[in-house]
């Protein structure tokens, strides 16, 4: 098992390396640059600026320099915001994004699993139809519709919650509620459907029949036997779910003006702020890769059928 973990851990670095390399070259070969303006700069000025950012050297040299800096943990200076470097922006906005993501994932997991189990146990009854209808809405309605609609009713119409801002302000924890619900909704829906389907499947299996035949109480059968088998697909869905939540945060942070990493993402891509895009991509990728790694290990621990070779 330890060997499996170590091997999987070492495997993370090539993936990260490939991601950084691919993004670096995709971003650089594209037409336009961070200093391309509607009004062209005089060639001499442009050359001076490019020299300052090492952009006059061949691409491969720039790549080498960039990689060397990354290994030292330096994401470079921003091309657009000249007062601070990328590390400052990335690590100041990362906590808000991480916190929002983790809260959303927890909401999605707790509500999704419990309503999935409820649906499976009350199959084709009212509770089942109700929670599955909510789940289908979650899958079919985009985030950027759910967010503004929530905002319209809860914040503007009924004035229950603040429209934007973040925790720690004068509104306490209230600004967290709407972004977290919006971001959690689609993943709640997926997890609920997944849980329902796999609980139903496990309920039909032979070992559950055996457990019941032994005369175990229904609650023991459900908690000890059904859930253990039925939650495996949910665990393996956690990786994609987290990836989706990270991506979704790009939109949700824009809607609710959350001071997170996502809001930089699109803007920096439009601005061709090479280092800031790269910094965001790298941080997001590290988070995703580490999450996938943890999920794999949890899965391997839970499922005795998986061999670690």
């Amino acid at each position, binding site marked *: 098992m330890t060997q499996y973990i170590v091997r999987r851990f070492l495997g993370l670095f090539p993936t990260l390396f490939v991601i950084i390399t691919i993004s670096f070259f995709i971003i650089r070969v594209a037409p336009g640059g961070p200093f391309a303006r509607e009004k062209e700069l005089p060639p001499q000025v442009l050359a001076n600026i490019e020299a300052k950012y090492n952009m006059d050297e061949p691409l491969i040299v720039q790549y080498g320099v960039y990689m060397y800096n990354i290994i030292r943990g330096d994401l470079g200076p921003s091309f657009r915001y000249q007062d601070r470097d990328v590390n400052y922006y990335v690590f100041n906005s990362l906590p808000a994004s991480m916190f929002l993501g983790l809260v959303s994932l927890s909401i999605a997991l707790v509500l999704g699993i419990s309503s999935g189990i409820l649906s499976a146990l009350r199959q084709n009854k009212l509770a089942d139809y109700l929670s599955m209808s909510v789940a*289908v809405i979650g899958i*079919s309605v*985009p985030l950027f519709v759910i967010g503004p609609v929530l905002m319209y009713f809860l914040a503007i119409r009924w004035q229950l919650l603040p429209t934007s801002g973040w925790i720690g302000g004068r509104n306490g924890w209230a600004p967290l509620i709407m972004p977290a619900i919006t971001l959690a909704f689609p993943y709640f829906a997926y997890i609920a459907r997944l849980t329902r389907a796999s609980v139903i499947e496990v309920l039909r299996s032979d070992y559950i029949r055996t457990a019941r035949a032994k005369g175990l109480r229904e609650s023991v059968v459900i908690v000890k036997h059904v859930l253990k088998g039925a939650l495996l697909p949910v665990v393996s869905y956690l990786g994609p779910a987290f990836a*989706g939540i990270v*991506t979704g945060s790009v*939109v949700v942070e824009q809607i609710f003006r959350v001071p997170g990493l996502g809001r930089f993402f*699109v803007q920096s*891509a439009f601005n061709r702020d090479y280092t800031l895009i790269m910094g965001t*991509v790298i941080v*997001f990728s590290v988070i995703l890769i580490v999450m996938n790694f943890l999920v794999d290990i949890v899965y391997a621990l839970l499922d005795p059928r998986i061999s670690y070779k």
Partner: protein
Amino acid sequence: MSNMPSSPDTQSAPDGATNEFDQPVEGVSLTKDAWRRLKKNHMAMAGLVLVIIYAVLSITAPILPIHSFRHQVSVHRDLPPSFTKTAGELWYERVENRMTLLAERDGRSQLNAEERAELAEIRDRIETERRVIDGEEVLVHQRRYLLGTDHLGRDMFARILYGGQISIAIGLIGTITSVFIGIVLGAIAGYLGGKTDYFIMRFVDVMYGLPYMLVVIILMAIFGRNIFNLFLALSLVSWLVVARVVRGQIMSLKNSEFVEAARSMGASQTRIIFRHLIPNTAGIIIVFATLRIPAFIMQESFLSYLGLGISAPFASWGSLVSEGVNRMTSTPWQLFFPAMAMTLFLFAMNFLGDGLRDAFDPHSKNRL
């Protein structure tokens, strides 16, 4: 007469095959069997009917008697949906209301001569004004906008219909591309095994670790928003799942008797892969494809919201919805109708996909 056969004579299957419930079973193909089970699933069938209706509407859109989706009538901006009133009547009402409001604010009980003259001119224009739209001369103010107009005075119904055409096309083309790449690479990796398999699957693993939508966002932001880039970006990474599934299926099938038989008869490797192995993965691929289409439509709408999707004058459901969201409070129909159209289609596709998954589930083979 009971449904259960009591003696072999009553069985319909000539070879007398039965399933574990002693029900007679005919030798049917996988797809036929799945279709029979799908027909019993009401939600899935409702989904299928809806999908067909959408498909027919999108294909026949150019010959349907609808207004132009790109022609702007500036005085028809933001007209609410109406079945009974013409655009002219709504326009007139709006101008009249605004004038009355202004007059009240100035403390006048009646409109002044200037305002009355303007209203008269509008009445005149409503009766007579003609415009050439798409080569046809029409009395433009006699139009009816069933679903209202957008902020530039374009018919919402036409925009939703044509937007659906683009959204569905994105879903279809993206899915076909990703399924094609996935099948070819997955089949090659699964069948050849060894080093080829190792390299293809390591590549798939690395790509899997990519933050997919973030890459798509970068591609769209940097290479510009056109439909070709959109397809390319969306299908670039989505083939991974197909490749993995197909590879798994093929690995489990490649040592089976029918493949051995084909090989012993001298069939080439390509023939074995494409004629014998891939058709056996059809069920899984059909299911994947139906669930992939709504996912693509959703992703395109996500990009549209960020301003990276389809650009004007063309529209997709995503771009319509994201435009509608910004004007939600003043002109709610601009959000409601496209969102309904899109959601309904995604509902239908999801139900159909779920139904297909159950229908193709090998555990239910030959169950009635």
